[in-house]
């Protein structure tokens, strides 16, 4: 089941996209990573929703109502992995920025295949504010 959390703006400036907070979907089977990425997004001023695997992410987009500025997509997940999910979302004409999240152990060919599935960018775990913040700011400014 996907869950929502609202970002706070107490300490940091919000990153606004067309005068709204960045809305992020975090797709990861590991609850630890979901919590960590949720907190990172909250700290940089975004709001987030989570999905436990690629299948949940696809179901969220099925009715065409979902609208995310950014999707953080883990690569290795049960039921439907990151590569398959990214391909499927692009087939469904999802235009959100999709950033793949890979691990150090992933081979170059695996990363390339992930990118070719339709990613906008790829980041290596563990994610940090320093890795995500400049990526979002830069791409949305462009």
């Amino acid at each position, binding site marked *: 089941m996907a869950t929502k959390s609202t970002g*706070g703006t*107490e*300490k940091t400036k919000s990153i606004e996209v067309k005068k709204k907070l960045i809305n992020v979907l975090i797709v990861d089977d*590991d*609850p*630890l*990573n979901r*919590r*960590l990425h949720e*907190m*990172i997004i*909250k*700290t940089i001023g975004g709001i987030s929703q989570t999905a436990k695997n690629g299948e949940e992410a696809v179901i969220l987009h099925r009715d065409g109502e979902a609208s995310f500025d950014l999707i953080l997509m883990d690569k*290795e997940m049960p039921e439907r992995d990151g590569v398959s999910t990214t391909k499927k979302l692009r087939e469904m004409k999802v235009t959100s920025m999709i950033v793949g999240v890979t*691990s*150090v*152990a992933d081979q170059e060919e695996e990363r390339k295949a992930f990118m070719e599935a339709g990613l906008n960018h790829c980041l290596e*775990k*563990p994610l*940090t*504010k320093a890795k995500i913040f400049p990526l979002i700011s830069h791409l949305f400014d462009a």
Partner: protein
Amino acid sequence: MEKLCDYFFIYFCPNLMICKNLFIGIAISNKLYIFFFSLLLPSRRVERAMDTLIAQLQRRFCDFTISLYHQGFLDDQFTELKKLQDECSPDFVAEVVTLFFEDCEKLISNMARALDQTGNVDFKLVGSSVHQLKGSSSSVGAKRVKGLCVTLKECCDSQNYEGCVRCLQQVDIEYKTLKAKLQDLFNLEQQIVQAGGRIPQVDI
């Protein structure tokens, strides 16, 4: 005096409140209790005693934190977790660390079960579990656990059964050691806060 210490420790710890005029301070460190009663002491002396207690706890906290990094238990990623914690999510680090230790228990148990099937070990399952554990340990900054996961993955890839068993035992010991040390760290934080102090920033 010690029996009175025990009495108050049992009934009031860990939610001990410090009153200005009736001052009771308890610092628990290697079974050492510092215990003051003062209805008669002027409040300025009480405050000075409190400040000393807080400073001692803060020093212990800093030294202990630094030792965890220098001994290789933690790396920069743990610092990143601390930076994310704020007043709105004061237990974020403890929450994430708890999830990590739950991961450890589940994945180590899976691997142990797979390795128990002597002659028919599913090295793919072991490899997949250790890959997950390596990811989790990397996310929380558990440096030693992560390092052992790398070695375990290598043993698994080469289907080195004895190597896997040995390594898994070390992973088990290492995560339990880290768990105990982080519990000590969180206890120190709690004592500082209960004494009315602030958790110091530690530069590593």
